[in-house]
């Protein structure tokens, strides 16, 4: 396999530059002294005023951030439990004998396919479906409907990452624990779950990012008191372009970069530990 030519590296750098161009522009304009609202995007000197505006309680950004965080917390927690249990239950299934058992197995397969649908169909379909369902059962729109909806699309991310990890585990590990007399519950708690933890964590991180980022579904199932950050950004951008949106976006970008860097640090640290393990042990 040949190494990349200089042209290939140039091409990659160019694509990455284009990928970051809009982000850099947002950060740059967050320091723009020009208060121009709709059409004026000229740069007129350095200012930190828009960052100060963010801390003004009247602007409602603090409230939006806290509803986003509360929403992401509950959605990730619930979907981590549901998705992990699902992955453990559905990894390495045996073929069933008997009509009833086979019917049960195919019902579970159908459930698995249904659970994966939210990330395969356009978001707007699930959004209108959930909105219609909630209004049919007269569930008031608010944090409860938001969490119920976010769990629906967070479960697949956790399920897929955990199931992928479990499928690579050596079945002999669990069998050995069973042969040594551990009960199924104990095997699950002391062998399977600890081995699945890295996958559960990365699935949760992904689900957290998706929940914090979601706009389309939240847009349809939110209540008057539960404006999340993406909804706040949308309404600000839609109305005009108040310059503190730039500051808000820059802060959100910095948080995303920090999270990713942290994740990278954690995973590279654990990799090194794993590589060192056979030598020291």
């Amino acid at each position, binding site marked *: *396999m*040949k*190494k*990349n030519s200089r042209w290939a590296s140039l*091409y*990659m750098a160019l694509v*990455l530059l*284009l*990928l*970051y161009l*809009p*982000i850099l*522009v*947002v950060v740059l304009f967050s320091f723009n002294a020009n208060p121009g609202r709709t*059409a*004026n995007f*000229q740069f007129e000197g350095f200012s930190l005023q828009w960052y100060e505006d963010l801390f003004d309680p009247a602007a409602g950004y603090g409230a939006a951030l806290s509803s986003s965080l509360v929403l992401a917390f509950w959605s990730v927690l619930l979907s981590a439990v*549901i998705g992990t*249990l*699902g992955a*453990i*239950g559905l990894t390495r299934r045996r073929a069933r004998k008997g009509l009833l058992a086979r019917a049960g197995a195919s019902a*579970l397969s159908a*459930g*698995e396919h*249904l*659970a994966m*649908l939210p990330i395969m*169909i*356009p978001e*707007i*379909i*699930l959004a*209108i*479906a959930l*909105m*219609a*369902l909630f209004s049919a059962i007269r569930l008031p729109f608010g944090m409860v409907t938001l969490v*119920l*909806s976010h769990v*629906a699309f967070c479960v697949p991310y956790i*399920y897929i990452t955990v199931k992928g990890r479990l499928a690579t585990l050596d079945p002999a590990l669990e069998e050995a624990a069973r042969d040594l007399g551990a009960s*199924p519950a104990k095997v699950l708690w002391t062998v399977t779950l600890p081995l699945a933890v890295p996958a559960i964590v990365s699935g949760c991180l992904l689900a957290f*990012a998706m929940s914090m*980022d979601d*706009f*389309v579904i939240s847009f*349809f199932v939110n209540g008057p008191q539960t404006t999340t*950050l*993406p909804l706040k*950004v*949308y309404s600000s*951008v*839609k109305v005009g*372009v108040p310059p503190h*949106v730039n500051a808000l*976006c820059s802060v959100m970008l910095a948080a*995303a970069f920090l*999270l*990713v860097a942290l994740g990278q640090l954690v995973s590279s640290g654990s990799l090194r530990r794993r590589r060192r393990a056979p030598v020291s042990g």
Partner: protein
Amino acid sequence: MRRPREGSGRRRELMALPMSLYAALFVGVSLLYVIGLSLFTRGDGFAAQPPLTMGNYGRIASPLYLRSLLQSLRLAFWTALLCLGIGYPFAYFMAKSRPRARTWMMMLLIVPFWTNALIRIYGWKILLSASGPVNAALQFLGLVQRPLKLLYTDGAVLVGMVYAMIPFMVLPVYSNVERMDWSMVEASRDLGASPLSAFLTVTVPMTLPGILAGLVLTFIPSIGLFFLSDLLGGSNTMLWGNMVHNELLKSRDLPFAAALSVVLLALTGLVILLYRRAGGKTENMVF
């Protein structure tokens, strides 16, 4: 020793019950409910009432909606194609980079994707505006006299769409190229194939699963993303997602909005069916 283990296996499957029940209620029932709603007549306020009718689907078969559908499909088609054109070489080169560079590339690619989609689209709004950096650069270089109208055009929507979707092309192609057996390519080169013909007759067919998955993953969401055309598009950019959004929140016609989403659901099903027919696997669609 066999019996208790089989029993525990069955009990273990029951652990998937919460997930199946949750999906059955909030995905299965809600989608069936929407399909049912689409057959009703509009009621007072935000409601549906009998009689049962196919009238909502009849309304969709009018020039206004067919034009919107065509516009959405065309945009989704070009989005998928451009993502392939730009993303394939990127993924290919990335897979051929040194491991260390590869990790960095992957991180640089994923980070923007972790940040809010609205923010990135908003960045394009600044870039493309009449007094924005792109126009300023064009004027500075003397290429144009007056600012071009870049924002609020179909082109702007396409740019934003490709931008939002490109990771979904790069990731499946990358994981495919990375696992590819390079000795096949070397063998074809040894047998006298030119680099180009080796690429076209060996590499492309071997990475076809990644290409297909990428095409589906970029095509399907492009039909439904209403906020993108809302922020970057002109007043005549009416994509299918915008139609659903408008009927639901402006006209508050629940049954008709339901019918519009059923059409979108059917289209999605058709695309996934074609994908499966072409030999695509569902596993390749998720990471």
